[in-house]
Structure formats: C-alpha cells, structure tokens
C-alpha cells in the first residue's frame, strides 16, 4: 500500500516538471516586456536595464531556466511587480479561501448529486428521472459566471438573504458569505455528479452479482447501497476528482463575481496587471492541485477496488 503511494508520488514528479517547463515557456513567449509592464511605459531606459539585470532577464535562456527551476523547488516565487509583496505571502493569504470554497462546494455538490442520481436510477423513466434529466441539462449549459450573477442578484440584492461580497470574518460569518458562491458551484457539480451517479448505478444494478444479492434475500435498499453504490463508487470517484478540478477552475469566475479573495481572483488581477511573478505562481498552484487531486484519486481507487490492490 505505502509502496503504491510512493510509486504514484514518483509518477507525479515528471508531470510537475513538465508543468514547470510549460509555465516557463509560456511566460517567455507571452507578448509584452515584463520590465515595461512592471515599471510602466514612463520608465527611463536605465531603470529598465537595471530591472532586467536584477530579474536575470539578460542571462541566456538555458541559464534562466535553471534559475527558474531552482527557485520553484525552493518555493521562492519572488515579489509582486505591482505591490512588491512576496508572492508566497499573496498565495498564503488567498489559498485558504479557494480551498475552503472548493471543499464546501464539492461537499454540497456530492450531497445533492449522489442521492439525486440514485433516486433517479431506481425510478428510471419516471418523474424523478426526468427531473434529473432537466436539472442536469440546465446545469451543463449554464456558464458558471452567469449562474453566479443570477444567484447574486436574486438572493443577495433582491431578497437580501446573503451578503453581497467578501469572505466575512469568523466561522459563522464566513459560512454565511460562502453559501451562495458555494451553491453556484455545487449546482453545476451536482448536475454532473447526479448524471454520472445515475448512469453508474444503473449499469451496476444490471450486473449478475446484484441478482445474487437479491437471490440471497437482500431488500432493495441494501441491494442499492451495499452492492450497487459501492461498486458504482469506482467510476464515481473519477467523477469526484473531475468535480474538484472543475470547481477549482470554476472558482475563478465565482471569486470574481462575488468579489471574494482567492487564488482565482489573484490570478485574474495579476493577468490584467501583467504581474508576471504572481501569474507564474498562480498557474503553478493550479497545476499543483490538478496533480495532487489525481494522486489522491489514484490512492482512493486502491481503497475502493480490491482488484487493483491485488495487482499492485
């Protein structure tokens, strides 16, 4: 088991390396001069040259690449061009908000989506199933920023049930602030999870071992949850991983609309201000999460499915 995790961890290293390389290349081919972006169009040539020298932009590219990797390994992301705050501080300040939003919305999405999917699967082609079909169609086709705006207008501006922006202070206030943004993402995720659960459960309920469970005298509830859902968890855990990643990317729009702090917000602001060190760190942060979620999912698989455990 531990060996398997280590092995998977080893697998993640080349991916991480590849991501770093892509970020490096992307930052170098992005239009615009970082020095010009940092110091503004009015900066005098001496200052610009000095800046380039200090940032190592005059070194040959391979050497820059090695410096870049070295900094990344030490988690040294430099300072923001705009605010001169260490990027690591910016990340540390914003990351918890994004993680909180992701956790709350994924949990809400699963709690909505999985029972809805099971309910629909066991009532195939009857009203609950059709309701899920319509719900997921809406969930699939509505863009996240649009849903966020609608919820904001209806529940915050018109009904006044939720605060309009920010993250709040303290646990309860924070919860009050996060409900609506989390709901936005949860609705989209639950549409996806509901659909996936329905399909997986239906597929599993047609299996021979489900018939065996019935032949033993198991009642429907036990058949569905003990034998059906447990086996459906295999495809579902992939779906949960995808959900988490989709929620992360969705958080960009939601943080923007609800004016919440977070990595997505940080990244968007950095892009509009050409704040290269921050963009670089933000992109790396997202990439890091994608790799982490995939890694965790791989390990979860092994727990759920003894067949993989036996092979490894």
């Amino acid at each position, binding site marked *: 088991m531990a060996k398997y995790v280590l092995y998977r961890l080893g697998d993640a290293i080349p991916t991480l390396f590849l991501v770093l390389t892509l970020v490096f290349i992307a930052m170098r081919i992005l239009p615009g001069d970082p020095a010009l972006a940092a110091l503004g169009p009015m900066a005098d040539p001496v200052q610009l040259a000095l800046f380039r020298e200090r940032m190592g932009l005059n070194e040959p590219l391979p050497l820059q690449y090695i410096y870049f990797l070295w900094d990344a390994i030490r988690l040294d992301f430099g300072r923001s061009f705009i605010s001169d705050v260490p990027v690591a501080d910016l990340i540390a300040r914003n990351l918890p908000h994004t993680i909180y939003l992701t956790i709350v919305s994924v949990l809400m999405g699963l709690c909505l989506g999985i029972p809805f999917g099971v309910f629909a699967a066991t009532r195939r082609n009857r009203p609950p199933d059709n309701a899920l079909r319509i719900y997921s169609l809406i969930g699939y086709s509505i863009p996240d920023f649009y849903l966020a705006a609608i919820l904001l207008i209806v529940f915050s501006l018109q009904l006044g049930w939720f605060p309009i922006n920010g993250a709040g202070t303290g646990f309860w206030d924070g919860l009050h602030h996060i409900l609506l943004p989390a709901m936005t993402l949860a609705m989209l995720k639950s549409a996806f999870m509901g659909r996936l659960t329905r399909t997986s459960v239906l597929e599993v309920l047609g299996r*021979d071992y489900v018939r*065996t469970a019935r032949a033993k005298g198991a009642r429907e509830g036990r058949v569905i949850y003990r*034998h059906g859902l447990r086996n459906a968890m295999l495809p579902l855990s992939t779906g949960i991983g995808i959900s988490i990643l989709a929620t992360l990317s969705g958080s960009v729009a939601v943080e923007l609309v609800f004016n919440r702090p977070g990595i997505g917000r940080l990244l968007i602001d950095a892009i509009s201000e050409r704040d290269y060190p921050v963009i670089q760190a933000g992109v790396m942060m997202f990439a890091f999460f994608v790799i982490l979620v995939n890694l965790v999912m791989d390990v979860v698989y092994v727990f759920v499915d003894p067949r993989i455990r036996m092979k490894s």
Partner: protein
Amino acid sequence: MTEPLLDIRNLCVDFGPASKPLRVAHNISFTVGAGETVGLVGESGSGKSMTALSVLRLVPEAARLSGEILYGGRDLLALPKRDMPEVRGKEIGMVFQEPMSSLNPVMTIGAQIEEAILLHERMPAAERRKRVIDLLRLVGMPDPEARVNAYPGQFSGGMRQRVMAAIAMACNPRLLIADEPTTALDVTIQAQVLAMMLDIRDRLNSAILLITHDLGVVAEVCERIVVMYAGHVVEDADVHTLFSRPRHPYTQGLLQSVPTLTDTRKRLYQIPGSVPPAGTITQGCPFRARCPKRLDRCAVEMPPMVTQGPSHRAACWATAMEAVA
C-alpha cells in the same frame, strides 16, 4: 400422494409489448417433491433459465410472468413484492450459470456468505463466522480459514461456483435451484463441482432443481427429469423410465446424442437443425421441423401433455397415436 414442495402450473414468461408479446415459456407445468432431485434439460435457449428465475421472481425487469408457482402451497407469483426477500435465500437458494460475474468483486467471499446468513437469521457474530467456515468446508473449499478473507478475483471459476453454492446453502433452504452450475467450467472442474453437488444432496435433505443441457449429468444426479424444448415442457418422467422408454422424439434424439462407454459409432448423433428462436413458431408443435415422426396435425395444433404411465407424461401427437393403437 403428499403435496409437492414446488408446483409450477401454467407458467408463461413474456417479453415485449403486451399487444405483441414474445413468449419464451409456454404453460410450463411440473413439480418438485420435498427432498427430490429433479433435472430440467433442454438445448440452450429452450427457456430453462427463465423458468428457474421465475421461481424467485428474478427475471429481467422487462419480463412478465403469469400462471402459478406454488411453493409449500403458497403462490409465489401472487405474493406482494416486498414478501419475496423472505423466500429468497431462506426457503429457496439459487446457484447461477455465470460463476465469474455472480459474486460481488469488492466484497470478500466470507462477507458475501455471511450476508446470506445475516439476512435471515439472528446469531452472535462469532457463531456466524464459524458457520461461514463450515459452509466453505461443506462445498469443498481448501483451507477455508485463510480463504474466507479473499476476494472473488482471487479464485478460479470452479472455486467461485463453490462459493456460490455456499451462499445458496447458507440458510439450509428446502429447495436449491442450480442453473447450469458446471456449464461455464472446464471439463475436469465440472466433474468436481458436480461431485460437490452430489455431496450436498446426500448430506442435506434439500430438494434440488438441477438445470443442465447435459443428459449425462442428470442421469447421475437426478431422480426425475423434465425435458424442455423451445419454451415448452415436452416430456416429464423418472430417470429410469426416461432413459429406457423415452416417448418424445426430441428426448429420443437427445438420448441418441449422449456418448456411451460401449459406443462404436464413428460420429455422435446430432438432432438435425436447430432450436427455433422464441416467437418464430406461433402454431403447432415447435419441434416438428426437426421431427422424424411428424404428422399433418403437428403443424396445426400443439400436442397436450398426455400421461404415458405412472409419473410419465409427454407432449407428442405421434406418441399419443401409438398409445391409442
């Protein structure tokens, strides 16, 4: 005669729309007495599995059942759906045709056998676990204490079929239905699993309905044989009578195609032609196209089951004529 344990009367299994039903079992009627071992034989596609699954009402959702299935005098088909779990596993155990897919891949075999007990009987956990080991020993699983925590994927088809048998026997059911328990296995394993079935039959006094397309198997195991063809029961007799005086041309053909030790024939006999797919024969006897004794009447009317002797019935116009003559 005492009331039979299982009494199937005019069972019909239909698929497709009610306006244009596809009937895969036509007026199936036969009985299984308490403690009796009955063989249900017929070529693949003759409706044996659908008949067996009907008893526990485990047919696919699309299938519609009609007729009566009396178990201990109670009509299982008339039972409310929610009462079926009390019959399944407790009164009637079932072993399926597909050992490779009939066990839950993410549960240990011990947990799966234990569940079968848990669903019907209350007992301390330690006692239940001991019962699981005993069951595994009964079905001939080597080293049961160690293998009880293994997953189905770690077993061969033959071993999985033993686990299935342990599940089916977990609550000592009065009737065991085994749907081609050996068909999916290698020949040598077939013999071992069959020996296990015989052993179970001798040690417990459950009645067994053994489904197979192999007459050699039923000759060894069963007391009585029911022959099915294209969704119809065509003959029903005790083993001795059926092998010495088969009355239906289909049964006669089946018997001729069984190899014997004293066989001097170069090639085994085979009934010419093949089983017509369900729904293609709407009138007359479904066997007539392959029948050496067919009469004009066979194309018009399905022959009824006619008594041929004590505990011997057959459905054939030609045979009925001979009986009269």
